[in-house]
Structures are given as C-alpha cells and as structure tokens.
C-alpha cells in the first residue's frame, strides 16, 4: 500500500496538469505502471447480430492490490483496425465481464476483439488484448477483407492453451435429452481457486478454438520517458475535453464546464478548466447511450468545446487475414447460423431495459416548489420572483442584476446556480426574462449547494412545460450530445436458465456462460444449466487464468444431446 502512495500523488498531479508542464521532473517507472489484460470469449465463431460474451482478467504489475483503472474499453475491429462497435465496462481487480453485440450488417470475415484501458493508451496499442473471431453473416454473400496493405501490419501468433491437469469436470451422464436440466461439478483445488480467475463456457463442440493469441512484435512502442497523457480512470469513466478559444485557437483557461445528464435528472457535475483549458468530468455509472448537455462559462468568450475520444483511434493492422471456412467450420457455422436466426425470430425484441430511469434529481428534493399553475400568469420570471417568492429578490446594481437570498446562510454571498430543465444557464438577464407561460414549475434549493469546488447560494431550477428549456437562449458555448456510457449488463440468468416454453424453440449457441466462476472452498463447485432443442455434441470448457501472469489453462469435457 505504502509503495502506491507516491503513484497516486503523481496521478493526482497529472490530472491537474502539472506533470505536463514539467514532464521530465518526475520519472515514471514504466514497470510499475503496466496493466495487462487477458480476454476469453465464449466462442470463436459468431453469427452477425449475436452477442460476444467475454471475460477479462486484469493484471496490474506491482499494483496488485490496487485497481488502477476502473473502466475497460472493448471494441470489435476489422483487421485494418476500424471499429465496428465498442463498449465500456466496469473493471476491477477481478477483471471485467460483459457482452458486445455484433452489428446485424457485419460482413462475414475475420474480426478482433480489442480490449484496453485509458492508462494502457500511454503505451503502444499493440499492448492491448486482441482476440480474433470469425463472424458469419448468412444474409449476404459479401465478405470483409482488409485491403489496406500500405499501413504497418502485424500478426498475431496463436498457441494452444495448455491443459489443466488438476481440474476435473464431473457429470452424471454422457448423454442428455433436449430441454433437460444438467448438473455439473468442478473439482478445483483451493490453490487454483485463489490464484486464478475461472471462467466456464458450454458450447457446441468446435465452436471455440482453444488458442492463445499474442502480438508478434510491438512496433511503435512508447519510450520510457514519454509523459503520460492518459490518466487512469480509478473512479469511473471520465469525459475529457478542452476549451479552445475560437478566435485565437488557444486553450481557454479558467472556464467552468458543467455536464448535465438529460436522459434522467440524476446527474450534474462541474469542473474548472486547467491551465491547458482541459476538463475532466466524471460520468455517471449508468448504462447505455445517454443524452448529455455540456456548457462552458467563459465570460461570453466564444469557445469550442473539444471532447476527447474515449476509444483509441490509433491504427492497428493485422494484414489481409482472408476469410475462409473449411468444411467442418462451414457445417458448424451453418448450424450456428440457423440457430442464431431462429433465436432472433423468437426473441422478443422490445425488451429494452428502460426501467433504470430514475426519478431522482441530482440536487435531491427541492426545498420549495412553486407550481406556476397555482398563480396568476405573471409576465416573466423576474416578476414571479418579486411577487411570489418572498425570500428572493432581484437586485440591480450598476446595471447588473443579481438574485439575492434574504435568508442569510453561510452560502448567501454566493450566486444562485441557475438551471432550466436541469441544465445550467449563465445569462441572468435572459433567465429572468423567461416567460411564465412556458414554465411549469420552479424548484428551489435554498440552503447552499456545492458543485465540484464551486459554492452556490442555492439552486433555482425552472421546469418548462414542454421540456424545451422555456425558449431561453442557451449559452452559445454549449452543446447537446449523445454519449455511450457503460455497456448494458449481461444477464447470465437469462442466458443460462431459459424458461422453456412449449412452442418457442430454444436454439442457443451457448448453453452456459460463467465469466467469473467463484469456486467453493471445499473443492467441489456445482453448476446447473439446460440443454436446448439443438442436438449434437457439446463441450464444457473451464478456463483458468492466472492472476499473476495472465496465462490461460483449460479443462474440457464433452457430452451429447439427443
């Protein structure tokens, strides 16, 4: 623990931009800062539109007890490095688990799952984890092939996973009927349990190549002395960006940036930009694509808000890697394809989880709420405040207006944080001129409020009737944008324990997936799963990933469904 303290300090310094201004003064010990990822997927063959299930082992050298990065970035890329889809996942010392849906229109071809952290971006992109997969699209005869040979190419070297001898998979039967519950147990020693991350997949035999892949060479490796630009996200994902003065194209220092989550009202954060005009806004721990509003207070100076790309765009190229299937592969893929198509037909589509929309507001329950319906229609907000809200007054001094709080608190000297439909507004004149007929209600927090390191006398939030921000002129230095937060969580119960309905076919291509098997201490770990309607030979694969070096061992067992 003690050893890590200087590093944490270092990182904190880096966040506030000191390191970059004095890059050479604090040498970074590269060995201490290396993160390593091992990625296991449930299969090696997928049908377009299917989900890739994966499990990641996380390894941080000399920081074993401290999770350095807490966000895992996973992309599905073509062999020329172009991403088809991507996702962010919560990462901890046990690694990360999740799934990534292959786009329906993905051409048949060889693709790679690419996994990394922001911290890893400081080193070469070839240090990331790459897992090759084959995707088959039954709907088109076109295939993908990398024709971009001009770029630097590298190859992956495959090696068979070694068999784990000290793990045995015990099943009661060799053969099972369709749609039957199956019980399996794993005999795992206590030592193995502690030193490894375990992961189980039960799939059609042959649909997973038990191979480990490593990048042949590490071109373009970053030097020891190069200063870190990407900071470890130890508290969750950040939105990083920069304010750039539109007139001079120089970074804008000392601006205030606020980020509001619009999809629900539970989140708002703020940051005072660094000397480089940079800001780091913590993103909410939510999943899916969310709508945000970002606004910069810059004393009316027009700035450009440049958002850093969360995913690494640095090129990788694995060469042509032509798409070919041999006869057994073809047969397997044909079957997987039919299963996938049938599963897709019979899976209810509108099962989008919108349930996680909270009614909570980031400032909690308002101290006072005014429903404007209750009062006569006054012309504008300023008059409403004057006539109806007893403790607020609009004071005009030297031509500049301010809202003052008559209730004296420790915060009354600070300004009010002004919001319209939960987003910050900086122009008080415009704010006060909002027409009351556009306002549904006004919520007030009166006893002081703190956003980041900024103190406010309180919050005045105007909730418009049509969620149209009451027609106010929003700050020119602001924008609306959709942003991908963490990928949706994968429901393992849905995967592993299907509810068998009489006339709905069960055509799962993966009967069981446990990305992080937590073994029993007594040595015998039991699992349960169901066979599907698909007959044939299946394979139970237990992956044992070393927590000390990331090496993978496997134990397998086959059974037949009749």
């Amino acid at each position, binding site marked *: 623990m003690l050893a890590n303290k200087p590093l944490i300090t270092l990182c904190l310094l880096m966040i506030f931009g000191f390191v970059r201004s004095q890059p050479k003064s604090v040498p970074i010990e590269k060995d201490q800062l290396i993160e390593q990822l091992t990625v296991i997927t449930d299969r090696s063959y997928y049908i377009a539109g299917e989900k890739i299930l994966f499990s990641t082992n996380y390894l941080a050298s000399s920081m074993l007890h401290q999770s350095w990065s807490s966000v895992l970035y996973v992309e599905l890329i073509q062999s020329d490095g172009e991403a088809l889809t991507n996702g962010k996942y919560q990462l901890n010392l046990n690694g990360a688990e999740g799934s990534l849906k292959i786009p329906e229109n993905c051409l048949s071809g060889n693709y790679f799952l690419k996994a990394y952290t922001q911290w890893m971006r400081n080193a070469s992109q070839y240090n990331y984890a790459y897992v090759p997969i084959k995707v088959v699209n039954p709907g088109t005869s076109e*295939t993908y092939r990398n024709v971009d040979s001009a770029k630097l190419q590298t190859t992956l070297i495959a090696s068979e996973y070694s068999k784990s001898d000290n793990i045995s998979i015990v099943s009661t039967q060799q053969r099972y009927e369709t749609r039957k519950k199956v019980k399996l147990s794993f005999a795992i020693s206590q030592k193995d349990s502690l030193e490894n991350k375990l992961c189980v997949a039960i799939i059609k035999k042959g649909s997973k190549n038990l191979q480990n892949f490593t990048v042949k060479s590490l071109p373009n490796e970053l030097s020891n002395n190069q200063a870190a630009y990407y900071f470890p996200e130890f508290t969750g994902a950040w939105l990083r960006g920069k304010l750039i003065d539109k007139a001079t194209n120089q970074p804008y220092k000392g601006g205030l940036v606020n980020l509001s989550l619009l999809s629900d009202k539970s989140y708002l954060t703020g940051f005072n930009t660094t000397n480089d005009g940079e800001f780091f806004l913590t993103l909410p721990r939510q999943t899916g694509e969310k709508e945000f509003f970002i606004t910069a207070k810059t004393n009316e100076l027009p700035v450009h808000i440049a958002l850093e790309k969360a995913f690494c765009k640095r090129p990788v190229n694995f060469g042509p890697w032509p798409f070919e299937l041999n006869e057994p592969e073809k047969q397997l893929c044909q079957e997987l394809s039919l299963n996938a198509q049938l599963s897709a037909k*019979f899976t209810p589509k509108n099962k989008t989880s919108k349930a996680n929309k909270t009614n909570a507001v980031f400032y909690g329950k308002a101290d006072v709420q005014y429903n404007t319906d209750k009062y006569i229609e006054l012309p504008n907000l*300023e008059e409403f405040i004057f006539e109806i809200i007893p403790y607020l007054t609009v004071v005009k001094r030297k031509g500049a207006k301010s809202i003052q709080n008559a209730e004296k608190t420790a915060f009354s000297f600070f300004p009010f944080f002004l919001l319209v439909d939960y987003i910050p507004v900086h122009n008080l004149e415009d704010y006060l001129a909002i027409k009351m007929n556009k306002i549904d209600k006004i919520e007030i927090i009166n006893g002081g409020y703190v956003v980041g390191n900024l103190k406010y006398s309180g919050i005045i939030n105007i909730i418009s009737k049509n969620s*149209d921000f009451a*027609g106010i002129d929003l700050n020119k230095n602001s924008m609306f944008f959709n942003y991908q937060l963490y990928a949706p969580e994968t429901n393992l119960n849905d995967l592993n324990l299907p509810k068998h309905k009489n006339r709905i076919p069960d055509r799962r291509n993966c009967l069981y997936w446990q990305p992080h098997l937590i073994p029993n201490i007594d040595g015998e770990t039991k699992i349960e799963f169901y066979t599907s309607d698909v007959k044939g030979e299946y394979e139970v694969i237990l992956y044992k990933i070393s927590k000390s070096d990331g090496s993978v061992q496997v134990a397998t067992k086959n059974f037949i469904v009749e």
Partner: protein
Amino acid sequence: MKPLISYYTLVTLLLCIVEQAYPQSSGDSLSFKKWLTENGETVGVLVYFNESWISHDIFPFQGDANDSRSVLEQFCKANKLKLLSTEDGIYIYKGSSISTTLPEWGTVRSGNGNNLVSNQNKVTQSEQQYKLGRIVADLELIKVGSPRSVNTLKNARVRGRVIDNDSDEPILGATIYVEEVEKGAATDIDGYFSIPLRPGKYKTTVNCLSMRSRTFYLEVFSDGDISIPLEKELVSINEVQVVADKINNVAGIQMGFERISSKTMKEIPVIMGEKDLLKIAQMLPGVQSVGEGSAGINVRGGSADQNLFYINKLPVYNTAHLFGFFSAFNPDIINDFSLYKSNIPANFGGRLSSIFDISTRQGNKKEFYGKGGISPITGHIMLEGPLIENKSSVVLSYRTTYSDWILSRLDDVSLRESNASFYDISGVINTVLNKKNILKVFYYKSKDDFSLSSTNDYAYANNGTSVSLKHFYSQALSSDIAVVSSNYSFGHNNKKNPSEAFNQNYNLHHNELRVDFKYTSPSNHKISFGGSSILYHLNRGVIKPFNEESKRTIVDLGKDKGVENALYISDDFSPIPRLSILAGIRYNFFNFLGPTTINEYFENSPLDENNIKTQKELENNQLVKSYSGPEPRFAANYRLGTNSSLKTSYNRLRQNIFMLSNTIAISPTDQWKLADYHIKPATTDQLSIGYYYDVPKKGLESSLEIYQKWTKNIAEFKDGVDFVSGKPPEMQLLQGRQESRGIELMLKKNSGRLTGWLSYTYSKSTILVQNKNLPTQQINYGKVYPSNYDRPHSFNAVTNLRYSRRLSISANMVYYTGRPITYPESVYYSEGKQTLQYSGRNEYRLPNYFRLDLSINLEGNLNRKKWIHSYWMLNVYNLTGRKNAYSVYFESNEKVLQAYKLSIIGAPIFTVSWNFKFGNYVSE
C-alpha cells in the same frame, strides 16, 4: 450435420401423416393451437410458433378441409407468416426469410461502413425540443370573403369584431393596424371596426392595452366578417409598454379628447374610497371641479350647465350624489368614458363646453361575474352574466350610502347636523339578436335625499331608459337607432323661515329619438350621418306654502316645452398620407312650443314688470319661437413624424337649454330652462391648435393645446335674483358674450412602475354684458368681468406607484387659483339702514385651492384559482388638512362687519374600503 431436408419434401411428409391421423377432418370451427396439439404432436415433429403473431386463428378455411398442407399454408398466408421445416421441427415465423444454408461467398468488401460516427453527430432529443421551443410560431392566417368573388380593382370591406375571449364582451378602443398599407381602425362600443382593403394578404396587428396583442395575416378576397378574440395579459410592472399602436395620442384625429377606461387603467387613483372615473376626469387639463363638495364641473371656462353627460345614450341631468362627493355612476359598471372638450364630433351637440360619453360594461356572455365593495360611506355591488349563453348578457348594479359618517366629519355646522342618503341602480341587457342586429336596453335610476339641519329637505332623482338597436346593412354600413327617455326631478322643502317656508317640485322630461349611420367607403372615408329629435317637457313646479304657518303665496313657475331636432353628416378621411381630416356639419333646429304665456315688452326698455306691453297666451304645441343654425365641425391632424403631430380644430355648438342658477355649483334646486321667446340659445365658436409629442420608449405622451372660445348669448343673472319668486326668467337674467382662452399642458405616463399624469392649465374666462342703450340692463356697468369659474392657474398631478402587483400607492394633487368673488367693499348707513357697497362683479378671488390625497391599494394574493378576490383601499382625502375656502361670507358682529371663510372639508378624511370581485387578481 446432415443436409437439411428440403422444405417441400418435409411439408409433404408431415401433411401426409396429418391427413392419416385426421382422415375425416370435419371443417368445424377449430383453433389452430388445438388442431396442432391434436395433429402435429402425433407426428413427433414439433411445430414452433409464437402465439402473439396469430391474428386469424379460426378455422374453417377455404378449400378441402382434409388437405392439411393447405391448412398450414392457409394459416401462414392468413397471418402473413412463413414456414420453415427442419429435421427438428417446423417453424412458423415472421419477417425476413431464414436462410438454411450459408451464402456462396464471392465479392469482397474492404469495410463495413462506420456505424459509430453517424450516430454521434445526430441531433439529440433534447436539442430537438430546444429548437422546437425557439421556433417563432407561424403567423395565423385569417381569410375574409370568398375566393370566388375576388375583384382586384375594387376595395373589399372587412368588418371585424374584437371581443374578450373570456367573456365575449366587445372591446372598445382596440386598434387594428394593417402594416402594408399603413391603414388603421379602432373598434367602436360594440367592438366593431370596418376597413376597406384591396384583395390580398396583409400583416395585421390588433392591440389593446392589458390584452395580449395579436398579429396575423389577413387574406382578403371580398367583403366579409372576422371575429378577433383577445386574451387578457398582465403587462410587466417594470416594462414600459411600447405598443405598436398607430392610433394613439399623436396619430388620432381627436384633440381636446380624453378617454379613460377601467380596463386600461387598473390602478386608477381612489377618491373617497371609490375609483370614481368622473372624479378622475376632474384631474384632466381644462376640467375643474366647481368646488369641494359640489356637483358640477367647468370645462374650458364654461359654466357647469354646458356639459352633457351621456351614459349609454341616456342623458343625466344631475350627476352628483351627496353634494357632489360622489358621482351618480357606480364605478363598478363604468367601462369607459370619453370626454370631448374641443373637437366635438358632429353626432353630438346640445352643449357648449363638453360631452361626457360614458359606456357601461356590456356583460359577460359566458359566465357569471360580480364585484362590489363597502366603505364607511357606501356599499356597492355589480353582477353580470349570460341570459342566453354567448348571445345575451345582463349587468345589474346597486349602490347605496348607509351612514352619515362623512357629514359628521365636515366643518360646516349645518352640514354636520344633516343627514343624507342616496342610491343608484342600473341594468343593462345586451343581446346579439342575429348576425345583423344587436339590441341594448339600459335602465338607470339614481336618487338622493337629504335634509340640511332641519332647514331644508331636498330630494332629487334621475330616471331613464334607453333602447338601442344596431343594425348592419353590409360590411360598410351600419345604423344605430335609439329611443331614450330620461327624467330628472327634484323636490325641495324650505323651512328656514317658518313664515316663508315653501315646497317646490320640479320635473324635466327628455325624450329622444336618434339615428346614427356609419359608412366606410371603399376609399376609406369614414362617414357618419344621422339625426336626432328631442322633446323636452319642463315643469318648473309650483311654489306652495310648506304648512299653515307659512304665509307664502302660491306661485306657478310655469312649464316649458320644446323640440330640438338635429341632422348631421361628417367624414373622417385622409386626403394625403400624413394628413387626416374630420369635417362635418350639424344643423340644429329648436322650436319652443306652447302652451305658454309670453310677455311682450316695449321696445328699447328693460324687460321688467313695468314695461310689459301685452301678454300673449299660446296654445299647446303652438310654435312660439324657433331658432336654428348650422354647427360646422372641423378637425385636422398633420403628422410631423412618427411621434409628433400638429392638430387643429374648429367647432360651433348651440345650446338650447340652460340652468337657472345663482350659485356656481349645481345645486339640487337649480332649474333647467329652455331657450324661449326672449332668451336666445347660446352659441359658441371654438378654435384650438395642439401639438402632440410621444416618447414611446419611456411610455410618455405629451400634449399642448391652445384654445379660444367666443360664446354668444350666455345667460348671466342679475344681482340678488330669486328663481322661486315667480318673476319670469327673462327679467332675472341678461345675455352677454363670453370669451375664454387658455393653454393646456399634459404629460402622461401610461406604463411602467410609475404611471399618472401632470397637467397644467392656464385659462381666462371673461364675460361682457353690455347694453349701451339701456345702461341698467348691463352687468358690472357694461365692463368686462371674470366669469364665476375663471381660474387662471390650475395644476393637477395624478401619480400611481406600483410597488408590486399587490401594493400600489397613489397620490393626487390639485391646485388652482381661487374663484372670483364679489365682496362688499364698504358699508354705509343712510337713514339708519346699513347698506353694503359691493365691489365690481367678481373683482376679488377666494384663496387658492390646494389638496393632496393619498391612497394605498392592497390586493389579495395572486393565486390563480379563486372564486373571490378582495382588496383593501386606504384613502386619505385632503392629507394636509388644509382649510380650503368654499366661500367667504360676511356677518356683522356688533356692528362690525366680519369676513368668514367657509370651508367644507378642513381636515384629513380617512376612509378604508374593502372591495371584492369574483375570480382572481386578473379578473376585471
């Protein structure tokens, strides 16, 4: 993996088995699911499908009931489903086809197309909303007329009606402005306006204070009607309202014209606990109250009887309650009033100085509404609502006094020991008979009773009804026919001296028929024409002894009868862009009719008892004397710029009825009298010039008007006359010339936190009664003297400060030069008798008048949903407690003649009144 068996082979196989299992399928109604469980499973091949896809589940089907292949195919066809057979089962599915084999891979592509980028740059949902919220709503399009009858060579007449959306009440004085042609119009009392426009599309704006203005496109095809409902709007307190009003102070043709509406002035100053619009009128330039606690007003140096008060076309001959502390109109029902003092439109006539045209509320046609209030002096209530929804409405009002509270606070001992009561009631029924006719019925009654410290009892009443029918002949022509009957009467018991005690009952009937036409020509000439006929019956009453003690002899003061007819025509037009002209003429015929007895006097001799040559008796309806004459009216407005204009007007007016009064105020015993054989009608010529200037950004309006009036045949009374003595009036008065001139300055602020006006008037009013042949028939030795109401300097300030919507403070200040008075200058004794030597007439003046009033208006809360809203008004009348002189009188005290100043109110009077209205703060 085995190759999949082809679709047809399998289906055929299955269907054969099914047929076997159900050889005699009946074709009865059967559910597909049931059919499957009974057939499908026997084959050992499962049929998979999702029940929710099935919309047509019922058998039988077309064709052979036993053909099970057909069953499945028909089922799929009916439900728009597809069929797939594999060795594991039969799948019924929806949507795109499932391919059971892998494609033959051929073509190669180098990219998948970037899904990630396109998604990020799209407009987010909230941004969409934000943009929507900022879109300025497209202007509404209102079409007039029929597209089939377009004639682009000729102006189409657009008639519109502006109403209050909440109550359907017509809005008076709303302005309509058509941007492209710079034409405007203003609505009349029934909310109507008419405007000629070439067929086309125009951007049109309708404005009215305290209503939300509306701008729309008016697409004109041919003659037609539009209705424009407006919604109420609260104007920001701080904001100076810049109304794109092209018919305003500057642009309007009217000069010497004031309009005050209860709608446009929410916070009008309070006097004696009531928002009395007539009292407010006295704060306007050129208008002066005759005195404290007195009825009557003087307009531009004219006497009190030179003003005509119309309320809904009904003339009111006595407009005072309680010695003039209150006007006879319940402020709750007054909607609007216009005061014409220099340019009097040709449709009005009959008085020399001014016309007060008061209109009442027309009544809510949608729901019931009411308001009222109580103060230590009065209580008043007004109720209105629909009789037939959206068609007919009624307004009822009642006001009364219930305490002698104010009298007990007066300085005057005789007043303090008096008691008084009054009431007034009124009713309005307003009915839209159909698209072309509106019928209005108005009834009004006011009554006052008071006894003055047991020396005098007075009672007087106004009573009247007006019925008017407005008819539209076309979009351009309308008429208004009104039948009016008004009655004024008073009774007087004089008990001051028991031996002289008498009583008198006076009665005046005014019956009138008037017809007014309005026509808007295609070239936008607004022509008004019409006529009126008034039949006067005046019974001046009989002086009778009050009781047996009285030695009074009975005197019949006589009756007057006369008919006054008038015809008029006027045109309001704009010959060149910046100039508008209102030119008209009114011709007045007056016939004095019998029965009456007239005295013929010797020529060139004073009209007195000694010079009567003969007496002539005239029969009923016999023409005694007839007077007639034209009354030209002209006004012009030249706009110097957008914010300033120069106006001028010339008017002649005739007055055939006047008041026998030897006081300057209107007292209950003043008798109206018609011009007769001897007394000629008075005529006046008035010329005025005015400069109008507005500062719209500050909400300021200013005006300067100069006027000069020449009046002929003004009746002046000889010294010491007594109108109950029975002497014929011609013996008691002399007719002379009056000249008035003055300057009126006005600065007005209509919006913002501080509203109100400042007005200053300089005026001179002199009278010359000269008769070189008969020096005794002169007043003031034939020299010019100031009239009774000559008050050169007058300054009024009306200010209203709105602290908030709930609290406003208003202050009024009144200052004017004291009125002229004739003083006894010396006393001499001849033969032991004291004789007073008086000064020249009106040689002296009373001390100057000054008064400051303050009122605080405290409104209830601003909640929206209330059934009653109440507010308090705290008022101080005469805040400084100044003892303003009403008159100066002389009494000899132990042979020393002492002058005493009489002041009516010499101390501040505090009143608190509580008022209410249905609805909330915004309700009217």
